[in-house]
């Protein structure tokens, strides 16, 4: 008769079920934690991006108020240029004056604004564009074509 060792491993049905339950618990627990962490990072990134945009928008609105007031106060283009300073680009195009400015960059985001001033000193916002410096090259990104 074959002699059985003292610490022989016996895998009965109960042990197998327990191991399976343990394995499932651990795997799903880790998966849920990883997924929750990824969602948290995405949420924080989104919140940070929105806050950066809002700060840029705040700056743009402030600069817009400066331009508006400068245009209303001044009598000539040179006077507007003198009041606004170097942060603003002013160009004369026929009877229209075009004023461009960019807000300071905040977390890779800035806003470029273009304004048109007519002879009646009426301002029109012709461009209010968000710029991001993070660029994605189409050659680098593989997009599934379907």
């Amino acid at each position, binding site marked *: 008769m074959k002699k059985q060792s003292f610490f022989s491993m016996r895998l009965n049905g109960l042990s197998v079920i327990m191991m399976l339950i343990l394995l499932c618990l651990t795997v799903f627990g880790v998966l849920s934690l990883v997924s929750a962490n990824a969602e948290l990072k995405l949420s924080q990134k989104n919140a940070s991006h929105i806050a950066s945009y809002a700060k840029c928008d705040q700056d743009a609105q*402030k600069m817009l108020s400066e331009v508006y007031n400068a245009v209303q106060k001044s009598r000539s283009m040179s006077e507007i240029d003198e009041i606004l300073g170097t942060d603003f680009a002013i160009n004369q195009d026929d009877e229209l004056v075009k004023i461009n400015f960019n807000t300071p960059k905040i977390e890779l985001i800035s806003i470029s604004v273009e304004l048109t001033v007519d002879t009646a000193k009426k301002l029109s916002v012709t461009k209010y564009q968000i710029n991001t410096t993070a660029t994605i090259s189409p050659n680098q990104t593989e997009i599934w074509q379907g």
Partner: protein
Amino acid sequence: MSSGSKSKAGIFLLEFTIVLLIFALSSIVSIRLFAKSAEIQATVSDTDQAVVYAQSVAELLKGCVGTDESIRQIVGQSNLMYFNQNQQICDKENAVFVISTDYKSNLLEFGSYVFGTINVSKGDALLYSLPFGGFYPPALEVIP
């Protein structure tokens, strides 16, 4: 015969106890993992909700005419807005989210510039803070 049977029962009991111990320990770890992920999910949900609230208030402020009256119509007389879990405006007692708006109005020669911060909090914890600014001219034409 009897001594061998007793020995086998003892080994089985020992083995079973060890298995139970390992199971209990691993279960504790796994349950803690689930609890932690549930906590993180709740934080994510609150942050997302706070961002939506702050953005909504900011957009409303940009759409108003910029006078103190029109701003107070949006942010409330005490600059505080209370929302319940169902995202509806409620009284202070039933509030889950509190939106407080700090703003300053600069009266310019032409128009006014209003700027400030929208803070969304839950309980005592500040969830999100969003800056806003708006220029309110006498008339400004926007070409789409």
